């Protein structure tokens, strides 16, 4: 782990703004996930989600995890369009769909990010210092680094497990191994992005 007494550890002391790189990393992976575009409250969006969730055992498990405990008869009525789920169940269906969708794309995400061993080039935008007093501002550039190796597999696994600590540790590993001596300044970022 990074040093515990670094000046960049207590972000906001001088009114700089940003999020931890691990959080930004998870957001970036989130952005890569695509799925059903239609909202769940539309007929089309609901039908597509139900179809996806009832196509496999994993789908039923996802519904279970999301807290949808309905009788088979109700589910069949939903599928047939004879009955519409309640608002609460619609929200649960949406959550269950995205939960399952994320689990299903994990392998694809790893493949895309690893890019056959070539890794992915990411852009790191440093913290927003526009509110920091001039004398406390640090000269931070936008950095572009290529991230490759087992890091992406670990990051995607931590992302799917919602393991914030692990994501933060991974981010610290990334910046320590690829950025120079001022890596600590990039512990918190305003955003990171990549094309994968």
């Amino acid at each position, binding site marked *: 782990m990074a040093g515990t007494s670094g000046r960049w550890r207590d972000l906001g002391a001088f009114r700089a703004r940003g999020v931890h790189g691990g959080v930004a990393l998870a957001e970036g992976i989130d952005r890569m996930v695509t799925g059903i*575009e239609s909202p769940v409250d539309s007929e089309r969006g609901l039908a597509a989600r139900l179809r996806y969730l009832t196509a496999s055992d994993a789908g039923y498990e996802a519904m279970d995890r999301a807290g949808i405990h309905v009788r088979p008869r109700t589910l069949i009525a939903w599928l047939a369009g004879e009955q519409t789920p309640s608002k609460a169940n619609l929200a649960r269906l949406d959550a269950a769909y995205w939960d399952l969708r994320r689990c299903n794309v994990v392998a694809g995400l790893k493949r895309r990010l690893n890019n056959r061993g070539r890794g992915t080039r990411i*852009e790191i*935008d440093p913290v*927003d210092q526009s509110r920091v007093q001039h004398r406390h501002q640090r000269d931070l550039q*936008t950095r572009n680094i290529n991230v490759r190796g087992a890091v992406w597999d670990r990051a995607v696994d931590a992302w799917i497990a919602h393991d914030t600590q692990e994501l933060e540790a991974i981010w610290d590993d990334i910046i320590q191994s690829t950025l120079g001596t001022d890596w600590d300044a990039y512990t918190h970022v*305003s*955003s990171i*992005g*990549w094309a994968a």
Partner: protein
Amino acid sequence: MSGEQFDRVEALLEEARLTARMPKPAERLRLRQAAGLSRAQVAAAVGVGRQTVANWEDGTTDPQPPGRFKYLRLLEGLAQIHPAAAPAQGPTETAAPSGAPVAGSAVPETAWGPNGLAVQGEPAPCLRCGVTTPYKATDGRSLHPGAMCQSPAAVAPLQAAAVPVPAPVSAPSPAPSPGPAPVPSRPQRRAKSAARAQAETAGLIGQAVHEELERAQGDADAAMKALVKRAIPDVMRLFGETRATARYTYTAYPALPDILTKPSKREPDQIWEARPNFHHPRYSLKNPGSIAVTALDVNAAYLSALKTWLPIGKLEHSTGMDGIDPKRSGVHLITPSPWHHPHLPDPLGDRDQPGPVWVTNATLRLLLRLATPKYGLLDPPVVHESWTSGATENFLDALRKTLTAARETAIAEDDTITLEYIKAMYSKFISTMGESIHNREIMRPDWMHIIHSQAYANLWGKAYKAHQAGLDVIAMMGTDELHVAGDWRQVFPEGRGVAQMKIKHSDAKASGEYTIGTAAR
């Protein structure tokens, strides 16, 4: 005369002799490259700077003392090792021991007179290259002194015609290029001139079209479809090429303020792009009349709109007029002042809602310009807050120029495939540069909005120009549609170029040339 003095005289003579035989700049370069020496090596040996050697080799300057003597000695030595003929020779030709005096060792040396100058005599074809020369070799035959000859390959036809004696026995091999042979061990120079870079970038377009045509085996429709499909990655590559030696590195994935993030994938963000939808209230299509109107179309409106002030980095917040700066760009929250002009469309588009609105910098620039005394068309808007970053107008300019040039060529050659390809490239570049799953290489919704509103601002400029020239602006819609009454050819050149206008034909009632009546009051 002491021996020492004599030596110095000798040295001077030698230097004068070498100076007289100084090879041309191109030859100096060739000799060094043939020997595989770097400029730095030569410079160190001669005792001058590396740049000086470079200047000598491209002819900017001629060798001067104190380095001159050593440099010429070096060149003379190199010329013996690598005579002009040698690098251009194919292995077959050197292997054939014909009577052709081409190999360096077979050529006798130049004869030097006691005055330090090469011996001259009856002009005859040169032994080495075949061009007529008065200079003689040691054996009395004609020979260019030093290494002044061109390679025999370059003058092969001439030689065949003019030289009767040393006619080559071997069959003429396919002529290699007369230029210096590339040395494989050394990388090519990386820096490119702007013109060469642009030509190369433009070459990518033709190359892609060629590739797809070949893959589709001449099926134009299939090729066009394939080209449109690959337009996004291709235009991103073109963009990357044009950014290769650029001064600024832009931020491709900045943190976006809330106003620029879409609440959901289907809903728009809060930026008003000032899209026009103007119909002159005094005219009506419903009432038949005799006013002749022409629907005009701006060619490649979005392509031209690539020239606009784009923010480079992450947008930063500021309040009041702080964000207004000619060198900054972004989005601004303004309260526009009312528009009262009876004949011209509102530059803010067909906005019904009053009150503050987020507009882009392109729209704000237009509004501020129209508020200047030169136009005096409205009061300046009140700016409440801004999200801006340092900006440049030349960001996408290289891309725009490349695409415009390729478009012009395609129009001249009536090449619809390339034309469609280019259209797909610039339009998809703009429409996917925001948050799109089709293009993840850049996420700048602010750029997209600014380019859109720049296109609308450009269209407004055209309407203003028409109005100033005495035409009636009947309608102004979308990105590129301008309907005018009057002799528009006096105002706008007709054609398909980006600076020209063409008549818009479509299925709509009001298209092409049509007539209109005045609205009932």
